[in-house]
Protein backbone atom coordinates (compact mmCIF):
# COMPACT_ATOMS: atom_id res chain seq x y z
CA UNK A 1 0.00 0.00 0.00
CA UNK A 2 1.11 3.59 -0.56
CA UNK A 3 -0.17 7.08 -1.24
CA UNK A 4 0.67 6.60 -4.92
CA UNK A 5 -2.32 4.37 -5.61
CA UNK A 6 -5.90 5.20 -4.67
CA UNK A 7 -6.50 2.27 -2.34
CA UNK A 8 -8.82 2.26 0.66
CA UNK A 9 -6.10 2.44 3.32
CA UNK A 10 -6.23 6.21 3.40
CA UNK A 11 -4.66 6.79 6.82
CA UNK A 12 -3.28 3.38 7.85
CA UNK A 13 -1.20 2.27 4.84
CA UNK A 14 2.19 2.97 6.47
CA UNK A 15 1.57 0.07 8.85
CA UNK A 16 2.62 -2.26 6.02
CA UNK A 17 6.22 -1.08 6.50
CA UNK A 18 8.98 -1.66 9.02
CA UNK A 19 9.32 1.98 10.08
CA UNK A 20 5.79 3.27 9.55
CA UNK A 21 6.33 6.65 11.22
CA UNK A 22 9.59 7.56 9.48
CA UNK A 23 9.78 10.45 7.06
CA UNK A 24 11.71 8.22 4.64
CA UNK A 25 8.88 5.68 4.59
CA UNK A 26 6.34 8.39 3.95
CA UNK A 27 8.23 10.14 1.17
CA UNK A 28 9.24 6.84 -0.49
CA UNK A 29 5.57 6.04 -1.04
CA UNK A 30 4.17 9.29 -2.29
CA UNK A 31 4.19 11.39 0.88
CA UNK A 32 4.43 15.19 0.53
CA UNK A 33 3.85 14.88 -3.26
CA UNK A 34 0.46 16.59 -2.95
CA UNK A 35 2.00 19.48 -1.00
CA UNK A 36 4.82 19.86 -3.52
CA UNK A 37 2.35 19.99 -6.39
CA UNK A 38 0.20 22.61 -4.66
CA UNK A 39 3.18 24.81 -3.84
CA UNK A 40 4.71 24.45 -7.31
CA UNK A 41 1.51 25.07 -9.22
CA UNK A 42 0.25 27.61 -6.68
CA UNK A 43 -3.11 25.85 -6.66
CA UNK A 44 -5.81 28.40 -5.73
CA UNK A 45 -7.49 27.89 -2.35
CA UNK A 46 -10.88 27.70 -4.05
CA UNK A 47 -9.74 24.74 -6.14
CA UNK A 48 -8.55 22.87 -3.03
CA UNK A 49 -11.76 23.57 -1.15
CA UNK A 50 -13.74 22.40 -4.18
CA UNK A 51 -11.90 19.05 -4.16
CA UNK A 52 -12.51 18.61 -0.43
CA UNK A 53 -16.19 19.42 -0.91
CA UNK A 54 -16.43 16.95 -3.79
CA UNK A 55 -14.83 14.23 -1.66
CA UNK A 56 -17.73 14.38 0.83
CA UNK A 57 -15.17 14.13 3.62
CA UNK A 58 -17.03 14.65 6.88
CA UNK A 59 -15.50 15.50 10.24
CA UNK A 60 -14.03 12.32 11.69
CA UNK A 61 -14.05 13.55 15.28
CA UNK A 62 -17.69 12.72 15.77
CA UNK A 63 -19.90 15.49 14.44
CA UNK A 64 -19.60 14.49 10.77
CA UNK A 65 -19.70 18.09 9.57
CA UNK A 66 -18.65 18.48 5.90
CA UNK A 67 -14.98 19.51 5.95
CA UNK A 68 -15.01 21.50 2.71
CA UNK A 69 -17.93 23.57 3.95
CA UNK A 70 -16.17 24.22 7.26
CA UNK A 71 -13.08 25.42 5.41
CA UNK A 72 -15.17 27.76 3.30
CA UNK A 73 -16.29 29.61 6.46
CA UNK A 74 -12.80 31.05 7.03
CA UNK A 75 -12.55 34.73 6.04
CA UNK A 76 -10.41 35.21 2.92
CA UNK A 77 -9.30 38.79 3.11
CA UNK A 78 -8.65 38.98 6.82
CA UNK A 79 -5.67 41.16 7.53
CA UNK A 80 -4.04 39.33 10.43
CA UNK A 81 -3.11 35.95 11.84
CA UNK A 82 -5.25 32.89 11.23
CA UNK A 83 -4.79 29.41 12.65
CA UNK A 84 -5.37 25.79 11.83
CA UNK A 85 -5.84 23.53 14.84
CA UNK A 86 -5.88 19.76 14.89
CA UNK A 87 -7.98 18.04 17.52
CA UNK A 88 -6.13 14.94 18.73
CA UNK A 89 -7.73 15.18 22.16
CA UNK A 90 -9.20 11.75 21.84
CA UNK A 91 -10.75 10.83 25.17
CA UNK A 92 -14.22 9.56 24.50
CA UNK A 93 -14.56 6.02 25.82
CA UNK A 94 -14.12 3.59 22.93
CA UNK A 95 -12.17 6.02 20.75
CA UNK A 96 -8.53 5.34 19.89
CA UNK A 97 -7.91 5.92 16.18
CA UNK A 98 -6.04 9.24 16.30
CA UNK A 99 -3.42 7.74 18.59
CA UNK A 100 -2.58 5.24 15.85
CA UNK A 101 -2.33 7.97 13.21
CA UNK A 102 0.13 9.81 15.48
CA UNK A 103 2.04 6.58 16.13
CA UNK A 104 2.17 5.17 12.64
CA UNK A 105 1.53 7.96 10.15
CA UNK A 106 2.50 11.30 11.71
CA UNK A 107 3.71 12.82 8.43
CA UNK A 108 0.41 12.40 6.67
CA UNK A 109 -1.15 14.47 9.43
CA UNK A 110 1.62 17.05 9.07
CA UNK A 111 1.09 17.20 5.31
CA UNK A 112 -2.66 17.50 5.82
CA UNK A 113 -2.18 20.37 8.26
CA UNK A 114 0.24 22.04 5.83
CA UNK A 115 -2.28 21.85 3.00
CA UNK A 116 -5.03 23.11 5.31
CA UNK A 117 -2.78 25.93 6.53
CA UNK A 118 -1.92 26.91 2.96
CA UNK A 119 -5.55 26.81 1.84
CA UNK A 120 -6.85 28.81 4.78
CA UNK A 121 -4.01 31.31 4.90
CA UNK A 122 -2.93 30.33 8.41
CA UNK A 123 0.31 31.57 9.94
CA UNK A 124 0.72 28.52 12.17
CA UNK A 125 -0.99 25.39 13.37
CA UNK A 126 -1.33 23.56 16.65
CA UNK A 127 -2.10 19.93 17.28
CA UNK A 128 -3.77 19.37 20.64
CA UNK A 129 -2.77 15.91 21.87
CA UNK A 130 -4.66 13.99 24.54
CA UNK A 131 -3.00 14.09 27.95
CA UNK A 132 -2.63 10.39 28.62
CA UNK A 133 -0.71 9.65 25.43
CA UNK A 134 2.48 11.57 26.26
CA UNK A 135 4.49 9.13 24.17
CA UNK A 136 2.60 10.29 21.07
CA UNK A 137 3.09 13.94 22.02
CA UNK A 138 6.80 13.26 22.06
CA UNK A 139 6.82 11.19 18.87
CA UNK A 140 4.77 13.74 16.94
CA UNK A 141 7.18 16.48 18.00
CA UNK A 142 10.02 14.29 16.71
CA UNK A 143 8.18 13.97 13.39
CA UNK A 144 7.85 17.77 13.27
CA UNK A 145 11.62 18.10 13.77
CA UNK A 146 12.18 15.66 10.92
CA UNK A 147 9.81 17.58 8.64
CA UNK A 148 11.41 20.90 9.59
CA UNK A 149 14.90 19.59 8.82
CA UNK A 150 13.69 18.41 5.42
CA UNK A 151 12.28 21.83 4.54
CA UNK A 152 8.58 20.96 4.84
CA UNK A 153 8.04 23.35 7.76
CA UNK A 154 9.35 26.77 8.69
CA UNK A 155 10.35 29.62 6.41
CA UNK A 156 10.29 29.42 2.62
CA UNK A 157 8.86 25.90 2.53
CA UNK A 158 10.31 23.93 -0.41
CA UNK A 159 11.53 27.19 -1.88
CA UNK A 160 8.00 28.50 -2.36
CA UNK A 161 8.37 31.62 -0.27
CA UNK A 162 5.58 30.42 2.01
CA UNK A 163 6.19 30.41 5.78
CA UNK A 164 4.27 28.14 8.12
CA UNK A 165 5.00 26.18 11.25
CA UNK A 166 3.33 23.54 13.36
CA UNK A 167 3.49 22.80 17.08
CA UNK A 168 2.14 20.21 19.49
CA UNK A 169 0.11 21.26 22.53
CA UNK A 170 -0.24 18.65 25.23
CA UNK A 171 -3.50 18.25 27.16
CA UNK A 172 -3.41 16.98 30.72
CA UNK A 173 -6.61 15.17 31.45
CA UNK A 174 -9.95 16.79 30.56
CA UNK A 175 -12.41 15.12 28.22
CA UNK A 176 -14.25 18.39 27.63
CA UNK A 177 -11.23 19.79 25.78
CA UNK A 178 -12.25 17.62 22.84
CA UNK A 179 -14.98 20.25 22.39
CA UNK A 180 -13.43 22.70 19.95
CA UNK A 181 -13.86 25.93 21.87
CA UNK A 182 -12.79 24.34 25.16
CA UNK A 183 -9.73 23.13 23.28
CA UNK A 184 -8.97 26.71 22.17
CA UNK A 185 -9.32 27.96 25.75
CA UNK A 186 -6.93 25.23 26.79
CA UNK A 187 -4.33 26.24 24.19
CA UNK A 188 -4.65 29.78 25.52
CA UNK A 189 -3.56 28.45 28.92
CA UNK A 190 -6.91 28.48 30.64
CA UNK A 191 -9.21 25.86 32.11
CA UNK A 192 -11.04 24.11 29.31
CA UNK A 193 -14.53 25.52 29.50
CA UNK A 194 -16.42 25.73 26.20
CA UNK A 195 -17.26 29.12 24.78
CA UNK A 196 -20.73 30.23 23.86
CA UNK A 197 -21.29 30.09 20.09
CA UNK A 198 -21.68 32.26 18.05
CA UNK A 199 -19.17 33.65 17.39
CA UNK A 200 -17.81 30.51 15.77
CA UNK A 201 -14.07 29.82 15.65
CA UNK A 202 -13.91 30.74 11.95
CA UNK A 203 -14.47 34.34 12.99
CA UNK A 204 -13.28 34.31 16.63
CA UNK A 205 -11.01 31.38 17.40
CA UNK A 206 -7.56 30.97 18.92
CA UNK A 207 -6.43 34.27 20.50
CA UNK A 208 -9.57 35.75 18.98
CA UNK A 209 -8.30 35.09 15.44
CA UNK A 210 -10.05 33.16 12.65
CA UNK A 211 -9.40 29.47 13.30
CA UNK A 212 -10.39 26.16 11.79
CA UNK A 213 -10.39 23.07 13.98
CA UNK A 214 -10.41 19.62 12.38
CA UNK A 215 -9.99 16.12 13.72
CA UNK A 216 -6.73 14.20 13.22
CA UNK A 217 -8.19 11.62 10.83
CA UNK A 218 -9.93 14.38 8.85
CA UNK A 219 -6.68 16.28 8.30
CA UNK A 220 -4.71 13.10 7.62
CA UNK A 221 -7.17 12.28 4.80
CA UNK A 222 -6.42 15.54 2.97
CA UNK A 223 -3.15 14.47 1.25
CA UNK A 224 -4.92 11.43 -0.19
CA UNK A 225 -7.77 13.59 -1.51
CA UNK A 226 -5.40 16.10 -3.09
CA UNK A 227 -3.36 13.31 -4.62
CA UNK A 228 -6.20 11.35 -6.17
CA UNK A 229 -9.00 13.88 -6.33
CA UNK A 230 -12.24 14.38 -4.45
CA UNK A 231 -14.16 12.08 -6.77
CA UNK A 232 -11.85 9.12 -6.07
CA UNK A 233 -12.27 9.63 -2.32
CA UNK A 234 -16.03 9.89 -2.65
CA UNK A 235 -16.02 6.68 -4.72
CA UNK A 236 -14.35 4.80 -1.86
CA UNK A 237 -17.48 5.29 0.20
CA UNK A 238 -21.08 6.18 -0.43
CA UNK A 239 -22.74 9.39 -1.65
CA UNK A 240 -22.62 11.99 1.15
CA UNK A 241 -20.34 9.58 3.10
CA UNK A 242 -17.08 9.76 1.22
CA UNK A 243 -13.92 7.82 1.79
CA UNK A 244 -12.73 5.14 4.11
CA UNK A 245 -12.95 5.41 7.86
CA UNK A 246 -10.99 3.98 10.73
CA UNK A 247 -13.28 2.02 13.02
CA UNK A 248 -12.02 1.35 16.53
CA UNK A 249 -13.42 -1.89 17.88
CA UNK A 250 -13.27 -2.49 21.61
CA UNK A 251 -15.03 -4.51 24.26
CA UNK A 252 -16.12 -8.07 23.58
CA UNK A 253 -14.35 -8.81 20.31
CA UNK A 254 -11.55 -11.31 19.76
CA UNK A 255 -9.13 -8.69 18.41
CA UNK A 256 -9.81 -5.16 19.68
CA UNK A 257 -8.13 -2.62 17.44
CA UNK A 258 -8.43 -0.26 14.51
CA UNK A 259 -9.79 -1.34 11.15
CA UNK A 260 -9.88 1.04 8.19
CA UNK A 261 -12.62 0.13 5.76
CA UNK A 262 -14.72 1.84 3.13
CA UNK A 263 -17.68 3.85 4.36
CA UNK A 264 -20.76 1.71 3.94
CA UNK A 265 -19.10 -1.58 4.92
CA UNK A 266 -21.62 -3.84 6.67
CA UNK A 267 -21.18 -3.96 10.44
CA UNK A 268 -21.19 -7.75 10.26
CA UNK A 269 -18.06 -7.68 8.07
CA UNK A 270 -16.31 -5.28 10.41
CA UNK A 271 -17.12 -7.50 13.38
CA UNK A 272 -15.71 -10.46 11.47
CA UNK A 273 -12.46 -8.58 10.81
CA UNK A 274 -12.05 -8.19 14.57
CA UNK A 275 -12.53 -11.94 14.98
CA UNK A 276 -16.20 -11.77 15.93
CA UNK A 277 -17.72 -11.64 19.40
CA UNK A 278 -15.23 -12.85 21.99
CA UNK A 279 -15.47 -16.54 22.75
CA UNK A 280 -18.19 -16.93 20.13
CA UNK A 281 -20.79 -15.55 22.53
CA UNK A 282 -23.98 -13.85 21.48
CA UNK A 283 -23.92 -10.19 20.47
CA UNK A 284 -26.12 -8.21 22.82
CA UNK A 285 -25.55 -4.55 22.12
CA UNK A 286 -23.28 -2.14 20.29
CA UNK A 287 -22.44 1.49 20.90
CA UNK A 288 -21.49 2.36 17.32
CA UNK A 289 -19.73 5.71 17.63
CA UNK A 290 -18.22 6.28 21.07
CA UNK A 291 -19.80 6.43 24.52
CA UNK A 292 -21.89 9.53 23.74
CA UNK A 293 -24.02 7.99 21.05
CA UNK A 294 -27.15 5.91 21.67
CA UNK A 295 -26.66 2.17 22.15
CA UNK A 296 -28.30 -0.16 19.63
CA UNK A 297 -29.36 -3.79 20.08
CA UNK A 298 -26.99 -6.29 18.47
CA UNK A 299 -29.63 -7.61 16.09
CA UNK A 300 -30.25 -4.09 14.76
CA UNK A 301 -26.53 -3.51 14.25
CA UNK A 302 -26.13 -6.71 12.25
CA UNK A 303 -28.43 -5.22 9.59
CA UNK A 304 -26.61 -1.88 9.30
CA UNK A 305 -23.77 -0.53 7.21
CA UNK A 306 -21.08 1.63 8.77
CA UNK A 307 -21.70 5.15 7.48
CA UNK A 308 -23.18 8.35 8.88
CA UNK A 309 -26.55 8.07 7.20
CA UNK A 310 -27.21 4.39 7.88
CA UNK A 311 -26.43 4.61 11.60
CA UNK A 312 -28.40 7.85 11.95
CA UNK A 313 -31.42 6.24 10.34
CA UNK A 314 -31.31 3.51 12.99
CA UNK A 315 -31.40 6.12 15.77
CA UNK A 316 -27.77 6.48 16.71
CA UNK A 317 -24.64 8.16 15.31
CA UNK A 318 -21.47 7.02 13.63
CA UNK A 319 -19.62 9.50 15.85
CA UNK A 320 -15.89 8.90 15.69
CA UNK A 321 -16.38 5.32 14.51
CA UNK A 322 -15.73 3.97 17.99
CA UNK A 323 -17.53 0.67 18.11
CA UNK A 324 -18.04 -0.75 21.60
CA UNK A 325 -19.21 -4.35 21.43
CA UNK A 326 -21.09 -6.01 24.29
CA UNK A 327 -21.92 -9.70 24.59
CA UNK A 328 -24.78 -11.37 26.45
CA UNK A 329 -22.93 -11.38 29.81
CA UNK A 330 -23.08 -7.60 30.12
CA UNK A 331 -25.30 -6.06 32.76
CA UNK A 332 -26.63 -2.95 31.08
CA UNK A 333 -27.23 -1.23 34.42
CA UNK A 334 -23.60 -1.66 35.42
CA UNK A 335 -22.40 -0.52 31.98
CA UNK A 336 -24.57 2.59 32.13
CA UNK A 337 -23.48 3.32 35.69
CA UNK A 338 -19.86 3.53 34.48
CA UNK A 339 -20.75 5.78 31.56
CA UNK A 340 -22.85 8.05 33.76
CA UNK A 341 -19.95 8.39 36.20
CA UNK A 342 -17.69 9.45 33.34
CA UNK A 343 -19.90 12.37 32.31
CA UNK A 344 -20.38 13.41 35.94
CA UNK A 345 -16.60 13.37 36.44
CA UNK A 346 -15.86 15.21 33.20
CA UNK A 347 -18.56 17.91 33.25
CA UNK A 348 -16.67 21.21 33.36
CA UNK A 349 -19.20 22.69 35.76
CA UNK A 350 -20.02 25.75 33.72
CA UNK A 351 -23.70 25.05 32.97
CA UNK A 352 -25.98 24.13 35.86
CA UNK A 353 -28.10 21.49 34.01
CA UNK A 354 -24.98 19.51 33.11
CA UNK A 355 -23.03 20.07 36.34
CA UNK A 356 -25.96 19.06 38.55
CA UNK A 357 -27.79 16.76 36.15
CA UNK A 358 -24.88 14.44 35.36
CA UNK A 359 -24.27 13.83 39.07
CA UNK A 360 -27.95 13.29 39.68
CA UNK A 361 -28.23 10.74 36.88
CA UNK A 362 -25.13 8.93 38.13
CA UNK A 363 -26.43 8.72 41.71
CA UNK A 364 -29.79 7.34 40.58
CA UNK A 365 -28.21 4.69 38.33
CA UNK A 366 -25.72 3.86 41.08
CA UNK A 367 -28.50 3.14 43.53
CA UNK A 368 -30.36 1.00 41.01
CA UNK A 369 -27.18 -1.00 40.37
CA UNK A 370 -26.69 -1.43 44.11
CA UNK A 371 -30.19 -2.72 44.86
CA UNK A 372 -31.62 0.52 46.20
CA UNK A 373 -33.55 1.63 43.13
CA UNK A 374 -37.09 2.95 43.42
CA UNK A 375 -39.93 2.30 40.98
CA UNK A 376 -40.10 5.98 40.04
CA UNK A 377 -36.38 6.16 39.23
CA UNK A 378 -36.68 5.37 35.54
CA UNK A 379 -39.09 8.23 34.93
CA UNK A 380 -36.82 10.43 37.03
CA UNK A 381 -33.83 9.55 34.84
CA UNK A 382 -35.78 10.35 31.68
CA UNK A 383 -36.87 13.66 33.16
CA UNK A 384 -33.42 14.74 34.37
CA UNK A 385 -32.03 13.86 30.95
CA UNK A 386 -34.69 15.83 29.12
CA UNK A 387 -33.90 18.82 31.29
CA UNK A 388 -30.21 18.70 30.40
CA UNK A 389 -30.66 18.24 26.65
CA UNK A 390 -30.39 21.44 24.67
CA UNK A 391 -29.87 23.54 27.80
CA UNK A 392 -26.09 23.67 27.89
CA UNK A 393 -23.36 25.62 26.10
CA UNK A 394 -21.67 22.55 24.64
CA UNK A 395 -22.62 19.03 23.62
CA UNK A 396 -21.28 17.30 26.75
CA UNK A 397 -24.71 17.58 28.39
CA UNK A 398 -26.40 15.89 25.43
CA UNK A 399 -23.58 13.35 25.32
CA UNK A 400 -24.37 12.39 28.90
CA UNK A 401 -28.05 11.97 28.14
CA UNK A 402 -27.65 9.86 24.95
CA UNK A 403 -26.54 6.72 26.77
CA UNK A 404 -29.11 7.08 29.58
CA UNK A 405 -32.11 7.51 27.31
CA UNK A 406 -31.03 4.83 24.84
CA UNK A 407 -30.17 2.22 27.48
CA UNK A 408 -33.61 2.77 28.98
CA UNK A 409 -35.24 2.62 25.57
CA UNK A 410 -33.70 -0.69 24.51
CA UNK A 411 -32.98 -2.43 27.82
CA UNK A 412 -35.63 -1.05 30.17
CA UNK A 413 -36.51 -4.53 31.40
CA UNK A 414 -33.04 -4.94 32.93
CA UNK A 415 -33.43 -1.74 34.90
CA UNK A 416 -36.91 -2.75 36.06
CA UNK A 417 -35.61 -6.16 37.11
CA UNK A 418 -32.80 -4.54 39.11
CA UNK A 419 -35.25 -2.28 40.91
CA UNK A 420 -37.71 -5.06 41.66
CA UNK A 421 -35.33 -7.89 42.55
CA UNK A 422 -32.38 -5.83 43.82
CA UNK A 423 -30.05 -7.83 41.64
CA UNK A 424 -29.06 -8.38 38.07
CA UNK A 425 -31.11 -10.47 35.64
CA UNK A 426 -28.02 -11.31 33.59
CA UNK A 427 -27.03 -14.79 34.66
CA UNK A 428 -30.05 -14.92 37.00
Amino acid sequence: MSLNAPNHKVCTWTQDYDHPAALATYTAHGGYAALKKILTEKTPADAIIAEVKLSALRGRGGAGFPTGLKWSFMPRNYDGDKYIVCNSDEGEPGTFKDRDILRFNPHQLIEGMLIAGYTLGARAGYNYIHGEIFEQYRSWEAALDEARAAGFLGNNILGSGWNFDLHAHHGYGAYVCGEETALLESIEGKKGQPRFKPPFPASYGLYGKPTTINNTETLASIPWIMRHGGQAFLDLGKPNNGGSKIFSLSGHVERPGNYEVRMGTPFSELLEMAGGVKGGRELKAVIPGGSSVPVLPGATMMELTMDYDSIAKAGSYLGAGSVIVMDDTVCMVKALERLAYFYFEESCGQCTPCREGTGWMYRVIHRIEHGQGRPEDLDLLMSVGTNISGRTICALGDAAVGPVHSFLKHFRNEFEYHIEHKRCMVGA
Partner: protein
Amino acid sequence: MLTNESLAQIDREIAKYPAEQKQSAVMSALRIAQQEKGWLAPETLEFLATYLGMPTIAVYEVASFYNMYDLKPVGAHKLTVCTNISCQLQGVDAVVAKIQAKLGIGFGETTADGRFTLKEGECFGACGDGPLCLHNNHTLHTRLTPDNVDAFLEGMK
Protein backbone atom coordinates in the same frame (compact mmCIF):
# COMPACT_ATOMS: atom_id res chain seq x y z
CA MET B 1 13.13 26.69 42.22
CA LEU B 2 13.37 24.54 39.10
CA THR B 3 16.48 23.11 37.50
CA ASN B 4 17.99 24.77 34.46
CA GLU B 5 16.97 21.74 32.45
CA SER B 6 13.32 22.17 33.41
CA LEU B 7 13.48 25.88 32.68
CA ALA B 8 15.00 25.18 29.27
CA GLN B 9 12.13 22.79 28.56
CA ILE B 10 9.60 25.43 29.61
CA ASP B 11 11.32 28.01 27.40
CA ARG B 12 11.01 25.65 24.45
CA GLU B 13 7.27 25.46 25.11
CA ILE B 14 6.93 29.26 25.40
CA ALA B 15 8.60 29.63 22.00
CA LYS B 16 5.76 27.71 20.32
CA TYR B 17 3.28 30.53 20.91
CA PRO B 18 3.11 34.20 19.89
CA ALA B 19 5.34 36.38 22.08
CA GLU B 20 2.40 37.98 23.90
CA GLN B 21 0.81 34.57 24.65
CA LYS B 22 3.23 33.09 27.17
CA GLN B 23 0.28 31.85 29.22
CA SER B 24 -0.30 29.21 26.53
CA ALA B 25 2.74 27.39 27.92
CA VAL B 26 1.25 27.04 31.40
CA MET B 27 -0.02 23.49 30.91
CA SER B 28 3.36 22.25 29.76
CA ALA B 29 5.15 24.29 32.44
CA LEU B 30 3.01 22.62 35.12
CA ARG B 31 3.74 19.22 33.64
CA ILE B 32 7.47 19.86 33.54
CA ALA B 33 7.50 21.23 37.10
CA GLN B 34 5.47 18.27 38.35
CA GLN B 35 7.83 15.81 36.71
CA GLU B 36 10.74 17.43 38.51
CA LYS B 37 9.13 17.97 41.92
CA GLY B 38 6.74 15.03 42.07
CA TRP B 39 3.77 17.28 42.77
CA LEU B 40 2.69 20.91 42.50
CA ALA B 41 3.21 22.75 45.77
CA PRO B 42 1.77 26.28 46.23
CA GLU B 43 5.23 27.82 45.90
CA THR B 44 5.72 26.02 42.57
CA LEU B 45 2.49 27.54 41.26
CA GLU B 46 3.64 30.97 42.45
CA PHE B 47 6.98 30.56 40.76
CA LEU B 48 5.38 29.55 37.46
CA ALA B 49 2.95 32.47 37.66
CA THR B 50 5.86 34.89 37.94
CA TYR B 51 7.80 33.07 35.24
CA LEU B 52 4.90 33.22 32.78
CA GLY B 53 3.66 36.67 33.82
CA MET B 54 0.20 35.56 34.87
CA PRO B 55 -1.77 35.72 38.15
CA THR B 56 -1.14 32.82 40.55
CA ILE B 57 -4.87 32.17 40.74
CA ALA B 58 -4.93 31.62 36.95
CA VAL B 59 -2.19 29.01 37.30
CA TYR B 60 -4.12 27.38 40.13
CA GLU B 61 -7.28 27.33 38.00
CA VAL B 62 -5.47 25.33 35.35
CA ALA B 63 -3.70 23.04 37.81
CA SER B 64 -6.96 22.19 39.54
CA PHE B 65 -9.01 21.75 36.34
CA TYR B 66 -7.00 19.06 34.56
CA ASN B 67 -6.91 15.75 36.37
CA MET B 68 -3.31 14.70 35.71
CA TYR B 69 -1.88 17.47 37.89
CA ASP B 70 -1.24 16.59 41.51
CA LEU B 71 -1.79 19.36 44.01
CA LYS B 72 -0.88 17.02 46.85
CA PRO B 73 2.12 14.70 47.23
CA VAL B 74 1.77 11.29 45.59
CA GLY B 75 3.79 8.09 45.83
CA ALA B 76 6.98 7.56 43.86
CA HIS B 77 4.93 5.47 41.45
CA LYS B 78 1.55 6.93 40.57
CA LEU B 79 -0.54 4.28 38.87
CA THR B 80 -3.67 5.47 37.10
CA VAL B 81 -5.93 2.71 35.88
CA CYS B 82 -8.69 3.38 33.36
CA THR B 83 -11.90 1.70 34.49
CA ASN B 84 -14.13 3.06 31.75
CA ILE B 85 -16.47 1.01 29.60
CA SER B 86 -14.10 -0.56 27.06
CA CYS B 87 -11.50 -1.44 29.67
CA GLN B 88 -14.30 -2.71 31.91
CA LEU B 89 -15.57 -5.01 29.17
CA GLN B 90 -11.99 -6.14 28.54
CA GLY B 91 -11.57 -7.19 32.15
CA VAL B 92 -10.11 -4.29 34.12
CA ASP B 93 -12.10 -5.06 37.28
CA ALA B 94 -10.08 -8.22 37.92
CA VAL B 95 -6.86 -6.32 37.22
CA VAL B 96 -7.79 -3.61 39.70
CA ALA B 97 -8.71 -6.20 42.33
CA LYS B 98 -5.30 -7.80 41.91
CA ILE B 99 -3.42 -4.48 42.13
CA GLN B 100 -5.39 -3.40 45.18
CA ALA B 101 -4.80 -6.71 46.94
CA LYS B 102 -1.11 -6.63 46.12
CA LEU B 103 -0.56 -3.02 47.24
CA GLY B 104 -3.12 -3.06 50.04
CA ILE B 105 -4.64 0.26 48.98
CA GLY B 106 -7.76 1.45 47.20
CA PHE B 107 -8.25 4.19 44.62
CA GLY B 108 -7.08 7.58 45.83
CA GLU B 109 -4.72 6.06 48.40
CA THR B 110 -0.96 5.87 48.85
CA THR B 111 0.94 2.99 50.43
CA ALA B 112 2.37 3.66 53.89
CA ASP B 113 5.92 3.49 52.54
CA GLY B 114 5.08 6.25 50.04
CA ARG B 115 6.00 4.10 47.07
CA PHE B 116 2.65 3.70 45.31
CA THR B 117 -0.40 5.85 44.71
CA LEU B 118 -3.38 4.29 42.96
CA LYS B 119 -5.82 6.43 40.98
CA GLU B 120 -8.91 5.69 38.94
CA GLY B 121 -8.59 7.21 35.49
CA GLU B 122 -10.95 8.21 32.72
CA CYS B 123 -10.54 7.20 29.10
CA PHE B 124 -6.91 7.38 27.90
CA GLY B 125 -7.86 7.01 24.23
CA ALA B 126 -6.09 3.68 23.80
CA CYS B 127 -8.99 1.29 24.47
CA GLY B 128 -7.94 -1.25 21.84
CA ASP B 129 -4.90 -2.02 23.99
CA GLY B 130 -6.84 -2.11 27.28
CA PRO B 131 -6.86 -2.73 30.16
CA LEU B 132 -4.48 0.16 30.62
CA CYS B 133 -2.39 1.63 33.41
CA LEU B 134 -0.61 4.96 33.18
CA HIS B 135 2.63 5.11 35.17
CA ASN B 136 3.59 8.56 36.46
CA ASN B 137 1.41 10.20 33.80
CA HIS B 138 3.73 9.45 30.91
CA THR B 139 4.21 5.73 30.37
CA LEU B 140 1.26 3.69 29.23
CA HIS B 141 1.19 0.01 30.11
CA THR B 142 -1.16 -1.98 27.93
CA ARG B 143 -3.04 -5.27 27.85
CA LEU B 144 -2.92 -5.90 31.58
CA THR B 145 -4.31 -9.13 32.96
CA PRO B 146 -4.53 -10.49 36.51
CA ASP B 147 -1.66 -12.77 35.47
CA ASN B 148 0.77 -10.14 34.22
CA VAL B 149 0.09 -7.60 36.99
CA ASP B 150 2.70 -9.19 39.27
CA ALA B 151 5.49 -8.74 36.77
CA PHE B 152 4.24 -5.25 35.98
CA LEU B 153 4.42 -4.19 39.65
CA GLU B 154 7.74 -5.94 40.26
CA GLY B 155 9.17 -3.85 37.43
CA MET B 156 8.49 -0.69 39.47
CA LYS B 157 10.51 -1.65 42.53
